[in-house]
């Protein structure tokens, strides 16, 4: 398994971390991992909520200083 594709959405407001993930996950293959970097605290909740609803896999979430890292695996 390769390194996750990094989506660096730190310091961005529009379209924002979740929409960046939605745009990028379309271009990924099933099984690919994507890691969203965000300075928006809400992303740590919004992204897992969407992943659950759509049926992708949440690999993990961690906070490093003021940056949230949310790792997702494309499941379908």
């Amino acid at each position, binding site marked *: 398994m390769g390194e996750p594709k990094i989506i660096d959405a730190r310091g*961005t407001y*529009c379209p924002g971390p979740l*929409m960046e993930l939605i745009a990028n996950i379309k271009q990924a293959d099933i099984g690919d991992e994507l890691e969203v970097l965000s300075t928006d605290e809400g992303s740590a909740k919004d992204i897992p909520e969407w992943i659950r609803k759509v049926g992708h896999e949440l690999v993990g979430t961690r906070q490093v200083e003021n940056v949230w890292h949310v790792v997702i695996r494309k499941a379908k």
Partner: protein
Amino acid sequence: MRILIVGGGMGGTILANNLARRLKSEIRHGKAAITMLSASDRHMYQPGLLYTCVGRMAPDELYRDQANLLEPEIEFHVDPVEEFNLDANSVKSRSGKSYGYDSLVIATGSRAMPETIPGLAENSVNCYTEQNALDMWRQVKNFKGGKVGIVVGVPHKCPMIPLEITFVLHDYFAAKGIADKTEFHYTYPIGRLHSLENVGKWAEGEFAKMGIKTKTLFNIKNVEGNGKIVHSEEGESIQCDLLISVPPHKGMEVIEKNGLGKGGFIPTDRHSLRMEGRDNVYVIGDTTNLPISKAGSTAHFEAEALGENLAAIVKFGEPVRDYDGKVFCFIEAGKDRATYAMFDYGHPPAPKAPNKAVHWFKMAYNQFYWASARGLL
């Protein structure tokens, strides 16, 4: 230094004119040259399409002759690029010519692609091209009432369009006297009504007053033509009589074909605007993969920063500033009111309540734009 700009849209045109003004002396003395390659001899004011789709701006008002917008120092050719040979610092165009460069700027924009979602193109209308806006106008003016669905694909240019098209259509149907027979269903891909949190909160209040139904976390999966039923990736559906889409976008085909970026969007450094891995190739406007708004103002501010930097490289040998992520978007809010969202990488937007003064400023800007394109504003 030979500067080659590929793309004659907002970003490319503002950059070319900005550079031509800064480098007049260098160009006259043969130390710099600016060439632009575009697919079209016309320049379109794309924000005008929001008005075209409700019959308020005729298509011919959207265009100006591209050559007439450019400073005379710019060598301009209607000869789109087909091959990028970045290792050789050259591009090959449709006519078969090769153009060499010292610095390349790619500003090829993005395009709405409703056909990438099954059933969307044939069952919806949108305002992203002249033809689509006219098709939408015909459906809108013949609409006698029923359910109007607004669905939004990702990514898309002009981030305010989902809200603006809703407000503009609501006003249009009210003026037509069918507001009481029309039900709006607005959907949005994330868990609020807009990507900007405070814009989304403001829209909630406006939509509640207007009786507009909403569904969030709604990403279009496919559209059934029989009954115009839109199904979402999240397992929900809406049915409508008139389906308005904000289609997902891709970059231009030439970008993907040349392996410059997935989806036609080129990996770009958010401050220097350099293409990742390339010292002498820059990207501005919708063509970047940057996580910022795909908007005309983004292209405009990027062009200004890059213009300053390229001119400084010619004059002093190095760039002078970073692009700070600045974006400015008007939001037409209906009933002759508007507001705006202005932000950058370090400062979130804080839009004020819409008012008539900002709406009339937007109306004036629809004409001032041509001065912006010339690099004057």
